[in-house]
C-alpha cells in the first residue's frame, strides 16, 4: 500500500473561499471542507448533529461554523458543539493540501 493510498482527492484548494466552507459529496455522504483566513483546511461531516441541515450552507466566522437552521455552532477544527441546540460533536476527518488539491482521509467504518 503506497503512503498516500487512503487519501481521497476532493476539490481544488482555491475553490474553497477564505473563511468559508464548501460542500463535497462522496458516495451517499456529504462532507464540509473549511478554509480559514490563513489558509488552513479542515473537514467535517456536513450534516448537523441536531436536525437535518447542511453545515456547508452555514456561516463561517474564525474557526467556528454556525448551522444555517437553528444557529448551533461548532468549532470545525475539532468538531466540538459550542452552544445549544447542538450538543453532539461533529465528526472530523484528516485533511491536507498537495499540489493545489485538498485531500481527506476517511476513518475505517
Amino acid at each position, binding site marked *: 500500500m503506497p503512503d498516500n493510498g487512503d487519501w481521497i482527492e476532493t476539490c481544488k484548494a482555491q475553490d474553497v473561499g477564505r*473563511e468559508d466552507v464548501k460542500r463535497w459529496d462522496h458516495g451517499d455522504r456529504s462532507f464540509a471542507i473549511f478554509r480559514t483566513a490563513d489558509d488552513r483546511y479542515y473537514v467535517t461531516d456536513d450534516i448537523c448533529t441536531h*436536525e437535518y*441541515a*447542511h453545515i456547508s*450552507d*452555514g*456561516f463561517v*466566522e474564525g474557526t467556528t461554523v*454556525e448551522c*444555517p*437552521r*437553528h*444557529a448551533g455552532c461548532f468549532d470545525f477544527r475539532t468538531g466540538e458543539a459550542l452552544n*445549544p*441546540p447542538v*450538543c453532539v460533536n461533529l465528526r472530523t476527518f484528516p485533511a491536507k493540501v498537495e499540489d493545489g488539491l485538498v485531500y481527506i482521509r476517511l476513518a475505517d467504518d
Partner: protein
Amino acid sequence: MPHDGIVIVGSGHAGARAAQSLRANGWQHRISVIDGEGCAPYERPPLSKAVLSGKSRPEDAVLFPQDFVEQHGIDFRSGVRAVGIDRDTRQVRLSNDDAVSYGRLLLTPGAEPRLLDIPGRELEGVFSLRTAVDACGLSGQLLPGADVVIVGGGLIGLEVAASAIQRGCSVTVIEAGPRLMTRAVPPELAELIRLLHETRGVRFILGRQAVALLGSQRIEALRMDDGSTLACTAALISIGVTPRTDLALAAGLEIENGIAVDCFLKTSDPFIYAAGDACAFKNGDGSRLRLECWKNAEDQGALAARNMMGANEPYTPMPWMWSDQYDRTMQIAGHPELGEQHVARHCPDGSLLVYHLDANDAIVGVSGFGSLREIARGVRTGQMLMQRGIHPAKEALQNPKIDLKAAAKVAAG
C-alpha cells in the same frame, strides 16, 4: 447563596434549559422541576413542521440528553402542577397535595393558545396547537382529501398549512387582518410567503372573521362574519397565545403583559425569577417586552439559571426567529418594526433579504425568505453588521454580487 434548592415551575424550553444550565454552571444542590405535562421535556418548533408533516415524532426531539435526570439528580415531578406559591415560607404547593421548598424559584409557565370565543369551539375536530398531545391529535386529521380550515394567518397557522398541504389535505386560511403575519413579519416577506402558499394550493380569505363552528358532534363547517360558510373536516384555531400568569398573580407578584421582571429576570419578589414566553422583561430603553420565540426561551432559561446563582448579568436580547415552510425558510433578526427604510436584496436563487434601516442608515433589523443557505448567511451577516455598528452603502446592501461579510471584516479592521 441559597442552599435549600431551586424549584423550576414548568418544563418547557426555558425551564428545561435552566435546569441544564444550573448543573453546567456547577449548581450542586437540589433542583426540582415541576412538570405539568407528564412527559420528557421536548422541543416545540418541530410540532407544526416535521411532526405534522409526518417526518418525525415529538419524542425524536427531546431537550434533555439521555439519562440527564438520573445522572444529574434532578427532582423531576412528572405530571404534577404547581397550584400555589407561599412566599412567606418559600414553598410551592403542588396538585398532588405535596409541597416543595425553595431558596430560589423560577417560573417558566409558558403561554396558552388564545381561545376563539364563538359557538361550537368544543366540537370534535377543532384543535389548537401548543403541545405534543395537540400535534398528535391534529396529525390524525391530516389525511389525504381532508378539508382543513385554519383560523389565523400567523406563523403557526402558515406552518400548519404547509404541513397539511404536503399531506394531501385541502387547506383554507382565514385571517381577520388585511394581510398575513402582521405582528411578526415585514409586509414584503409576508407577500412572498402568501404567493408560495397559493402556488402550493392554499386558499386565503383575508379580512374575515369566524363567527361559529358548525356540526352536531364533529365539526362540519365554519361560518364567517359575512354569513357564508366553509365546509371542513377539521379546524385549527391559531390566533396567538396569552402568557400564563395565574400562579404569579395569585402569589401577588407584579404582572404587566406577563410576569414582570427586571433586566436580571427577577420578579417583584427577590427570591423569584421568570423566563420564557410568560416573562415580561425590562428592555434597555425602560420599556417592557415579552417575546414568544425559541431563542428567547433558550437564552432566558440559561440566564435566569446563572442569575439565581448570583451572576447578575442583564438580559440583552438579540431577537432572532425562524420558520420553515415547504422547502423554504424565513428568518428575522433584530427589530424590523423599527426600520424607516427597507432595502431589498434579491438573490439569484429567488431568495429575498430585506435590511431594515433607521433614519440614520443604521441597520436595526434583517429579515429574509428563501433558501436556507442564502437566508441563513444573509441574516447572520446582517446581525454581524448590526453588532459592529457598520452601515454599508444601500447600493452594497442591494447588490447580491457584493460580499457584505467581507465588507464587515474590512470595516472592522
